[in-house]
């Protein structure tokens, strides 16, 4: 048995099928799609009978494209691995269609003296595009093994596994070192001299030389007359390096590849004539986006209408009945039903909506339309100093902020990424939609659609305002769109089988991660709700519980929003919403369901429970058309009438909804933000969103109560002072950032 697991890295240009290959080799379920940037972080999986670990790295066009403005992001994950020589074998995946540009990175890998196997993917397409590739010649040119596969169809995988096995058997140092490109003799001489004198590898010296080109400072090779002279022909060494490489690649490819003129572009052009049409492009974009949400909400809720009553029956009603039958202590009954049971219902009831939404989004991504959507909206987003990719991320954020934040990875500019991440928490996610729908159905049954629409518009407006403020306050510097370059994938029909599988994987991931948060919260809440401050068990939760005590204390802070001590369950739900917005409704369910319908002494039989459940399912199915109305319509929950006893005014509810819309993003979003743009920006996002939420919600209260009284006037002044304080914090952030930039900028 090996003491150390060998590492095999998958590397290649974006959208060449790396994750398909990863899934084939490891039997994992990484997300795939027909667009650049599907894989956002390196994924790991065991293969070869656990003998080696396969790492699927995010796609890149070259090992070092150009240094980012943020020095922390200057070195990518792949470059780190190469620099530290951590990977035992690289699988360089090449798509058969655009070999020339892909071989550029292959050459870089070989020059970095890395052990490589070339994986020629999508060989099934060779016949379609009438292309022939001489594998032996390609292997001879690169002096490395070349294996043909179709990762999507599973062709050639066995042969690849054998090659990996053989290659890993050999010690890394025994593998041949290949430098397929010969540069000018003056450069080669300089490389060898510097390599010998400094003890660095040839690749390390090469990078050092090129870095000087970008840093715009006197290059290291300035005093080499033979090299300096070459600037007459090429502007920099980087230019010379790139063009020399391409010269070699083109000469070899003319011998290796024979192909016919392609007709594929004609098909793509026909579709683009529609989707990028001057007048039809924008309406088609909005139709597509509306279609995704209409489908996910309609079909998703229809399925939910069947699944949720069944889940409730199995996880809450039947266990409760059994507990009563076997005379199990109430505290265990509460934990089983209101803790575990309710958390299962809460987490799984999102599954259908998410599943249909991910399925629809997968269809758009796989077809190649998603990238066109970014192109169509690019100019509009540029008005907010953001690229079109930001809009795609923000649209995804409407489903759930977490995938939205993760999708910012394919925004090339770091500053744009930060602005998009700051805007994201204001995009009303599916979980918040449920909260709005429940409250609207109870308090504004006639205007539910209008309230939902208003909240969506408010969220989007605050997001745009945040983007504009971040730019114009100088907090985040704007960079011109001078390096805007986006690969447009070919159109293709989405695979239903892959789509269904991917939607399942994505939804399951979300539900699983949400469940890990919801379960302890529900159990903890159920416990705190049935234990008094004095430590006694309460059969019926009420004012004496620990939670009621906490809620009442905190309600003072929320007084300007319109919540009083009577509304402590709402206050507790807001606090719990920090963990996940899904928890808000489940928290209220626990409070109000138990208050409105305390534990029954006589539980109906299982057959009666089944009858009630099936009746509910049939009612939901009969009202299927209601799910496809433009706006979500959720029936008022059974515990809704209890609100009336709480004397909550509709104004207070609106204040609560506005606060819920805008405040602290959930912990998962916070974690995703920190992962993408760092903890400092994640912390700022939390602070900013909570201040904005507080000001907007209390501002609304003041507006509806005009003219204001003395106390409210004081509050208004406090809010103004708070806003001013917020502005000062932003300015401080901005000046600190400017200072940092000045300190690190090259002389």
């Amino acid at each position: 048995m090996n003491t150390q697991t060998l590492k095999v890295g998958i590397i290649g240009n974006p959208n060449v099928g790396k994750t398909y290959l990863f899934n084939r080799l490891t039997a994992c379920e990484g997300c795939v799609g027909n667009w650049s940037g599907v894989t956002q972080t390196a994924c790991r999986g065991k293969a070869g009978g656990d003998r080696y670990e396969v790492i699927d790295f995010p796609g890149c066009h070259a090992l070092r494209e150009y240094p980012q403005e943020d020095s922390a992001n200057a070195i990518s994950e792949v470059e780190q691995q190469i620099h530290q020589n951590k990977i035992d074998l690289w699988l360089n995946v090449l798509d058969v269609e655009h070999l020339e540009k892909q071989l550029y990175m292959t050459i870089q890998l070989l020059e970095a003296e890395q052990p490589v196997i070339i994986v020629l993917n999508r060989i099934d397409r060779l016949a379609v595009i009438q292309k022939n590739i001489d594998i032996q010649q390609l292997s001879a040119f690169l002096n490395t093994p070349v294996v043909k596969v179709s990762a999507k169809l599973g062709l050639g995988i066995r042969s690849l596994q054998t090659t990996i096995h053989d290659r890993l058997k050999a010690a890394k140092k025994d593998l041949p070192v290949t430098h397929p490109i010969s540069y000018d003799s003056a450069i080669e001489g300089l490389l060898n001299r510097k390599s010998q004198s400094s003890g660095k590898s040839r690749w390390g010296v090469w990078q050092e030389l090129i870095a000087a080109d970008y840093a715009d400072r006197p290059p290291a090779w300035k005093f080499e007359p033979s090299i300096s002279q070459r600037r007459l022909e090429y502007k920099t060494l980087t230019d010379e390096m790139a063009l020399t490489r391409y010269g070699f690649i083109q000469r070899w490819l003319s011998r290796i590849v024979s192909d016919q003129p392609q007709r594929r572009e004609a098909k793509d052009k026909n579709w683009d004539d529609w989707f990028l049409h001057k007048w039809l492009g924008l309406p088609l974009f909005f139709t597509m986006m509306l279609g995704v949400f209409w489908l996910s909400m309609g079909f998703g809720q229809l399925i939910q209408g069947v699944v949720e009553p069944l889940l409730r029956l199995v996880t809450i009603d039947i266990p409760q009945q059994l507990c009563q039958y076997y005379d199990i202590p109430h505290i265990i009954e509460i934990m089983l039903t209101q803790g575990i049971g309710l958390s299962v219902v809460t987490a799984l009831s999102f599954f259908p909506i998410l599943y249909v939404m991910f399925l629809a989004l997968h269809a758009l991504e796989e077809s190649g339309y998603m990238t066109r959507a970014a192109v169509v909206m690019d100019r509009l987003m540029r008005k907010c100093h953001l690229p079109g990719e930001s809009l795609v991320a923000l649209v995804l954020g409407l489903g759930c902020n977490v995938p939205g934040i993760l999708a910012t990875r394919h925004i090339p500019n770091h500053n744009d990424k930060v602005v998009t991440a700051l805007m994201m928490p204001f995009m009303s996610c599916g979980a918040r939609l449920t909260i709005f729908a429940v409250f609207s159905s109870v308090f504004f049954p006639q205007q539910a659609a209008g309230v939902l629409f208003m909240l969506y518009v408010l969220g989007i407006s605050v997001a745009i305002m945040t983007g504009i403020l971040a730019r114009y306050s100088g907090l985040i510097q704007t960079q011109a769109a001078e390096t805007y370059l986006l690969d447009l994938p070919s159109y293709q029909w989405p695979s239903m089988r892959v789509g269904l599988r991917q939607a399942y994987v994505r939804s399951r991931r979300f539900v699983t991660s949400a469940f890990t948060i919801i379960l302890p919260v529900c159990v903890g809440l159920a416990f705190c709700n049935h234990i008094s401050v004095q430590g006694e068990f309460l059969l019926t939760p009420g004012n004496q519980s620990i939670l009621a005590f906490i809620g009442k204390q905190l309600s003072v802070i929320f007084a300007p929003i319109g919540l009083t001590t009577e509304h402590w369950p709402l206050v507790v739900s807001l606090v719990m919403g920090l963990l996940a917005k899904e928890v808000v409704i489940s928290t209220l369910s626990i409070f109000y369901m138990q208050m409105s319908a305390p534990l029954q002494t006589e539980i109906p039989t299982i057959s009666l429970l089944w009858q009630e459940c099936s009746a509910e399912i049939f009612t939901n199915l009969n009202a299927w058309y209601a799910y496809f109305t433009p706006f979500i319509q959720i029936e008022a929950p059974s515990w809704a009438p209890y609100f009336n006893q709480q004397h909550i005014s509709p104004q207070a509810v609106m204040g609560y909804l506005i606060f819920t819309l805008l405040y602290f993003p959930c912990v998962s979003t916070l974690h995703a933000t920190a992962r993408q743009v760092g903890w400092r920006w994640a912390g700022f996002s939390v602070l900013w969103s909570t201040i904005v939420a507080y000001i907007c919600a209390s501002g609304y209260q003041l507006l509806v109560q005009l003219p204001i009284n003395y106390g409210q006037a004081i509050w208004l002044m406090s809010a103004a002072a708070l806003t001013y304080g917020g502005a000062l914090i932003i300015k401080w952030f901005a000046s600190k950032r400017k200072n940092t930039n000045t300190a690190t900028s090259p002389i």
Partner: protein
Amino acid sequence: MPENKHMHIGVAYRILSLNNMRLVQRTALYTRGIIPGKKVAIQHISPLGDPLIITIDHQTLAISREMWAGFELEEWSE
């Protein structure tokens, strides 16, 4: 904003040089196989006027007008 005079949809151009661009831009183009001597054509202009959709080497790319302005081009002749 600088504009390239070669803005005709469907007309093939030869890339003469990329030297008017910054190194960062040139590198981004090199990694996509866009080098002097290649044949390039504008296929579409996006609905709001920017970016441009170009085809080069059987690949379709979206590129900003500003970046396109840095291309030195001539009409393609076989």
